[in-house]
């Protein structure tokens, strides 16, 4: 057993889990902009629950990607090049979503807001779906040759698992966002979020349960099956707690579901990081895809100090913005004053 590659396998599992936990709810809130919110004020309530934190959440994705590059360059190279088109969709989705968060409120017309609302909603949906598809495929495999390159053309990655994984992250993000909104808002939005959560949880968690179970059937070990049972219990607890209006506990229980679920998945596939569906001799594993011990050691030292620090100051951010947001908190739209004339470039003299 190689110690450092194992540590980095765990570290990357932690980074992906952190990403899904944190960005999960802001992706879900993004999708709910059009599905759930009924008017502009409600949309602004939704936006402001994630406003201070979404960008920091997204960095978990960059760190997961960067850490994969540094610790398992062959995994990074094969996965990202094989999934060229789906990742392009993720990139475009993330670009529009990020810009939309910042620009939506910058011009005071309904048309402007509606366009960016769609950018947020669709951007969140496609980002969640694409990330989910990529994660599912790295667990179930891609048609890779001996060099780790995709065979079979631009769509060779496509399989039922891609769809299942995509829906898994979309479904989870929506449930997670409803739990988050019930916890972070007040008034009508809070109550509706809780109602929707209770109603929709059993349906929306089906795809992620399907992905988890498929992996267990394929590669499961006794201990990862045990984690699955615990995950199911956590989901049931989340549902029950939400029914009893214990919003904070319901949110944490759902978080526990995610952590247990992803642990069971990563645990089951270990030590393979990306199987080849053409020939298992071409599988990428923690041994044949990893960087040198020197590089992994260096990264371990930095991460051992850096990652807890990140968690600490991000936790502090959530503490600073711990208040619930409600319609009453939303300030009037700042009607933009084109005060100082608009004709500078056409005025003569």
């Amino acid at each position, binding site marked *: 057993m190689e110690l450092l590659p194992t540590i980095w396998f765990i570290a990357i599992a932690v980074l992906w889990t952190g990403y899904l936990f944190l960005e999960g709810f802001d992706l879900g809130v993004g999708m709910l902009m059009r599905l759930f919110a009924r008017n502009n004020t409600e949309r602004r309530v939704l936006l*402001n629950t994630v*406003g*201070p*934190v979404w*960008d920091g959440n997204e960095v978990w994705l*960059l*760190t997961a*990607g*960067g850490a994969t*590059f*540094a*610790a398992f360059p*062959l995994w*990074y190279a094969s996965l*990202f*090049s094989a999934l*060229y088109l789906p990742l*392009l969709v*993720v*990139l*475009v989705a993330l*670009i*529009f979503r*990020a*810009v939309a968060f*910042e*620009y*939506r*409120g*910058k*011009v005071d017309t309904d048309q402007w807001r509606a366009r960016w609302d769609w950018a947020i909603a669709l951007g969140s949906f496609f980002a969640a779906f694409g990330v989910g598809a990529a994660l599912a495929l790295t667990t179930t495999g891609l048609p890779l*040759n001996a060099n*780790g*390159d*995709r065979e079979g053309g*631009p769509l060779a990655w496509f399989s039922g698992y891609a769809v299942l994984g995509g829906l898994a992250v979309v479904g989870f993000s929506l449930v997670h966002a409803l739990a988050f909104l019930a916890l972070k808002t007040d008034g009508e939005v809070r109550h509706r979020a809780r109602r929707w959560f209770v109603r929709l949880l059993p349906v929306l968690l089906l795809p992620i349960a399907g992905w988890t179970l498929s992996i267990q059937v394929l590669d499961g070990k006794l201990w990862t099956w045990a984690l699955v049972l615990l995950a199911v219990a956590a989901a049931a607890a989340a549902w029950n707690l939400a029914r009893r209006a214990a919003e904070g506990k319901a949110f944490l229980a759902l978080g526990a579901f995610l952590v247990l679920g992803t642990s069971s998945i990563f645990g089951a596939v270990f030590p393979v990081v990306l199987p080849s569906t053409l020939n298992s001799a071409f599988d990428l594993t923690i041994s044949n895809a990893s*960087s*040198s011990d*020197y*590089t992994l050691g*260096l990264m371990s030292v930095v*991460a051992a100090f*850096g*990652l807890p620090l*990140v968690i600490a*100051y*991000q936790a502090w951010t959530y503490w*600073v*913005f711990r208040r619930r*947001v409600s319609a009453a*908190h*939303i*300030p009037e739209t*700042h009607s933009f004053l084109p*005060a*100082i*004339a608009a004709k*500078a470039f056409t005025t*003569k*003299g």
Partner: protein
Amino acid sequence: MDALEIARWQFGITTVYHFMMVPLTIGLGLVVAVIQTAWHRTGNPAYLRMTKFWGKLFLINFIMGVATGIVQEFQFGMAWSEYSRFVGDVFGAPLALEALLAFFVESTFLGLWIFGWKQLKPAIHLACLWIAVIGSVFSAYFIIVANSWMQHPVGVEMVDGRPVMTDAWAVFTNNTALVAVPHTLFGALAVAGGFLLGIAWYHLWRRRHDGVDTVGADGKVIAGEAADIPGRDRDDHKVWLRSLRIGAVVAMISFAGTAITGDLQGKLMFEQQPMKMAAAEAACHDGTGFSVLSVGNLGSQSCDDIVALIEVPGILSYLAKGDFTTEVQGVNSLLPQYQEAYGTHLPDNPIYGERAGQEIDYLPVMEVTYWGFRMMIGFGGLAALAALVALWLTRKGTVPESPWLMRLAVFGILAPFGANAAGWIFTEMGRQPFVVAPNPDPNGIDQVFMFTAAAVSPGVTAGELLASLVALTSVYALLLVVEVKLLVRYIRGGVVSAMPELVHAPVDENEDATPGPGGSGNAKPADDVLAFAY
């Protein structure tokens, strides 16, 4: 075009675009942090207005840098998988550390700064901005460490055909990086300086044009107030005059900084990548002279077609070695050396695709390197000169009435952007045909280099790359229009566009007044409206 060429265009376009946003983020971030510090220490309301106004523009731009940065990290794996496999052991670490140690800091603390005007104590709120800005500087450092390793690989040895990191200290203190980091940071500050100068000039001009400010018999400004427009008072004049002066001084200092660090960088580059510098000079023959103007067909890539029309003797030697007499090797002497060291033909290896076995052209595209080098210096120098003239013209407290000067100041904002882009295009194109340039130091590492032709993803089709090139370029073009429109809108609106409190008097609301730098004096801040809301 084949996959390699499309992938190169894509990397070039997305990187130059990303690096339009990044220098403004770094430079303007530093300036806003200094201004907010001034407000914190003096309580002068003009500084608060400057913080809010420039901070607003900073954020409109910042988000574009964030959005386009993700593409950068992903496309190494997507389009350049062979490159990623080859360099991953050493190149991945600075990228991962950038995300972990810098970008997390930047985005988290900037979120705190944007939304925390009331939730945080003023000193902590200010500290959040400083932490975010320092994060962006570290971000630049890590990315440049990664890039510098491509320019000048150090700290590795070859194991099974791949470079493996053996000395992290050497990688993270690569001399190429140590001069490139300050060069880049000064370049970023130059962008911010020009930005402040141009926009502040516009507003001072506007105030004169509208008759708000007048000029007395001694030529000195008499600042006035426009009663009908909120925020257009005497403080507003201070905001713009101070911004203009800060911008001009920053622009001049940063040009000096880029010149000094650029000179150091050039001297290193003559040793580390002599062909790049020879191509920058279109210098075919050995010599000491710096070409002020070379004519002929640079694009023919043939030395027979190039005539140096005006040459200043000795200057090239100075740029390379610091004296005026050392002969600097030209393209004609360097080519055989490169061919001997790195081969005349690409190996017959499938990773080169159709290019396997082709002859290697060690001469970068001279049209690009020659003019890129000159545009970098030219735009940078022009901006600094303009800043000096601007300080002189505004010595009596306002700008001349000429609308042409105002237009010049506004369009001059583009000059430092142009210098940044030209510099990067020069250094990246000048490294070709290598993606990882060889380290020629006799004591340096041997045989660690990679031809760009070997770097592209073998499994990815030209069609996929074309799809992404078209998609990303269109999205970027669309968003550039949106960003510039928004910036123009907020710039024209002036300070009030970033400070609703100047329009809506706080007494109208049930809650208390806006907090000063002394702290949120509200009894119940928890019931207040959000300090900042999307």
